[in-house]
């Protein structure tokens, strides 16, 4: 590349308005990790196959490795870091991953959890088969799929029951 090409990108990340100059060749994974130190966003396959880099953009899940950083302009982006409470508490879905032993090496976990967040926030009740499909964009090399499904299903049921009581 003859001259490096940069662009100013303004977006909301985990509730805070941020602005930075990015190299137009950067992926959103590059920007989130290198410019904002959001290292829950993992570099796995980097070709859209494994879901380790998954983040929520304007309410929908995307693999940030195949999303150009410049496309983040004006968007609302959420990563796993946004789930932490004010005193560092874990969210219910994170706790469920621990309780169900859904974390082994942990590399796939942030990506899975962000898909789970989109599922849980829909407020809908899904069957186990539907959950399987909704989580099918993630690979776990440690192959803990059943425990991951259990964690998501239990959290979904808990939240639905809580909403019922209210």
């Amino acid at each position, binding site marked *: *590349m003859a001259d490096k*090409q940069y*662009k100013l990108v303004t977006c909301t990340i985990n509730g805070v308005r941020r602005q930075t100059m990015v*190299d*137009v*060749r*950067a*992926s959103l994974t*590059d920007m989130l990790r290198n410019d904002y130190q959001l290292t829950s966003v993992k570099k796995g396959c*980097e*070709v*859209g*196959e494994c*879901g380790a880099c*998954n983040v929520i953009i304007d309410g*929908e*899940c*995307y*693999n940030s490795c*195949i*999303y*150009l950083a*410049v*496309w983040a*302009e004006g968007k609302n982006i959420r990563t796993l870091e946004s789930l932490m409470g004010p005193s560092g508490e874990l969210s219910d879905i994170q706790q469920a991953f621990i309780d169900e032993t859904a974390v082994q090496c942990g590399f796939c976990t942030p990506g899975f959890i962000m*898909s789970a967040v989109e599922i849980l926030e829909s407020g809908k009740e899904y069957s186990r088969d539907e959950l399987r*499909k*909704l*989580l*099918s*964009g*993630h690979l776990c090399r440690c192959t803990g799929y059943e425990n991951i499904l259990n964690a998501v299903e239990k959290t979904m049921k808990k939240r639905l029951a809580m909403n019922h009581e209210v």
Partner: protein
Amino acid sequence: MYDMKALYEAESVSEAIQLLQEHPEAQIIAGGSDVLVQMREGKRAGAELVSIYMIDALRGITMEDDGTIRIGSLTSFSHITKDPIIQKYINVLGEAVDMVGGPQIRNIGTIGGNTCNGVTSADSASTLHAWDAIVELTGPEGVRRTPIKDFYIRAGKVDLKPAEIETAILIPKAAYEGYHGHYIKYAMRNAMDIATLGCSVNVKLTENKERIEDARIAYGVAGPVPMRAPHAEEYARGKALTEETIDIFSKSVLEDINPRDSWRASKAFREHISQVLAGRALRESIRLAGGEIHG
């Protein structure tokens, strides 16, 4: 970092056309789920890109005054599946694109990319062929429309003129009114897999629901580009809803299809499942249309 030479971002269709004219070597990037992966693989390394991803005017599904369904080329697969117009009039398209990759891919992948890549296994392609879709292209000379079967030239090559972009996929009223259809993707895995074969069938029954007024069938991966099976379609017209009709319809597809050996499956296997899927998809289409098959 992606190995790209330069990135030009368009905010409108006219700007995209202008950028493509100024940079004749540049390639279009929509959602990038083909382009960026190929750039990583080295196939598109060092390319100049014109990004159309930010052109929101190309997103969404609308019904035009004459009943034509208009799908903006940047509409993502997940938005097609969720759309009430699609669900009401051509639900099978929403079902077909719901079989692409996994959830995150369905949020980034666009119908424009899925047709302009010229790929025979593209999950929307056989259904669009089976519903007589029209491709709307906008370029320096203005807007033109071409039937989807003429849009595909050969594997990986579609009829895009210099500085032209696909702006929409259109389904005319005559192509969907009264039709019901079903798509089957045959693949090794239930998710994140490319079709070994795709088969999309739809039918319109006579008013008394005793006979097939019209049937259409299209395949992906039964040849270098998606294709219809006109012999089977011609045979089915006017036939009663019987097992024999389904049987002969399924066998007739061999007159048209031309699959090949690949690492996913052999030619013989593809020929076999082409018939099986034709029968299953026809059966399901008849059921959806309210018909009953007799012995």
